[in-house]
């Protein structure tokens, strides 16, 4: 049991560092969600199921949801950039010869 706990704690640190270092906001929010989930397992190993339920419902549930909504509002998730790149590529293919000549 101790070994599992220690592994979880190590994982917690890794998650925390990863959250801080990732550039992509979506990735870091998802990692943070995982962090909360691990936290709720740690609460169980610490014999506090009350905290585990609360952390799972609030930390991994509601807080992450609010983060996702925020990301959506600030256009961090939308596929806009992908679409645009694909579109430009298609344009290039359409009148490909001229573009290549210029370049």
């Amino acid at each position, binding site marked *: 049991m101790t070994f599992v706990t220690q592994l979880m704690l190590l994982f917690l640190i890794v998650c925390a560092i990863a959250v801080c270092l990732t550039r992509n906001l979506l990735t870091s929010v998802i990692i943070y969600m995982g962090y909360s989930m691990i936290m709720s397992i740690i609460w169980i190993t610490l014999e506090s199921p009350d905290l585990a339920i609360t952390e799972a419902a609030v930390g991994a549930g509601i807080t992450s949801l609010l983060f996702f909504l925020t990301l959506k509002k600030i256009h961090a998730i939308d596929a806009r950039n992908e*679409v645009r790149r694909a579109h430009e590529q298609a344009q290039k293919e359409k009148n490909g010869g001229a573009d290549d000549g210029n370049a």
Partner: protein
Amino acid sequence: MATPEWFGKFKHRMAEIVETENDVLERDMVRSQEIEPEKGETEEEMYRRIRLEQEKQEEEEIAKRLHEWNSRNVSKVSRGVYCALCVLICVTMIALLMYTVTTLPSFGSPDHPINNEVSARYIEKGLQETGAVNIVTGMILDYRAFDTLGESTVLFTAAMVVLFLLRLDSGSEKYSQLARSMKEAPHADNFYEPRHDAILQMTAKILTPIIILLGIYVVLNGHLSPGGGFSGGAIMGAGLIIYVTAFGFADIRRFFTYKTYQRVVLCALLTYAASKCYSFYTGANGIHSIIPLGTPGAILSSGLILVLNICVGFIVTCTMYAFYAVFRKGEV
């Protein structure tokens, strides 16, 4: 440039899928602007063109502003000094806190200073004095109820500030600009509604009752098993959120509006405060409380704790749902 070909194709395909999905929404959006298609252009292409133009404009503007900001005298030196200072503070703090940790008693040993007469009484007499089998619930809702009252107030305060920041009122002109930008932003959620997703709706139909039932169970059993008003409330809030995601706000308006939110929170918090008022007053003045504690272990036991749990449950459910709704579309 070493991307394999299949990957490029895959990406292209994905982009197309996303695009066709967006196009449907685009059409409704752009239609209101009454723009005629250029010569030799299909409708589809026109929407794409307009959207790309808009995006380009937007991005150019941002880039311009960024450039302006960068060209201002953002001194890199001060930033460096700031970073160095922060790192220094962090290192000092980690050293001091680590040292503090080494002076504490070992983890898991019973001779911590906190295992004193206070926790002993909670464990030994908690059941008789509060009637709650779950000692933690008994402690936070009876022994240290003032803290918990403060905690609910924190939630209420946060809800008020969030509503203040994000709720849009059609009546006020001053901030109609914000309302427009929120409602008509390219990816605002109003465009997605109502969206009949069969899989999601089916799942929600099955899941929502179960989740809400679980939440109710956790709330009502707060004094008997792990959980309580807060966790149960959060679970019920999650249930409501799943429902609204599947069926849309128009559907949930049938039974949950801003007025409902206001009234439920008002009643729950007032009941909470009033019952605490009673127990604080009787406690401090040495009056015997007339509320029976019931048989320990029964669902109708532990006096006011059950009522308080239900109140907290209602407050949290409504607040969590209100957070979601107000974040998503600016009104409850």
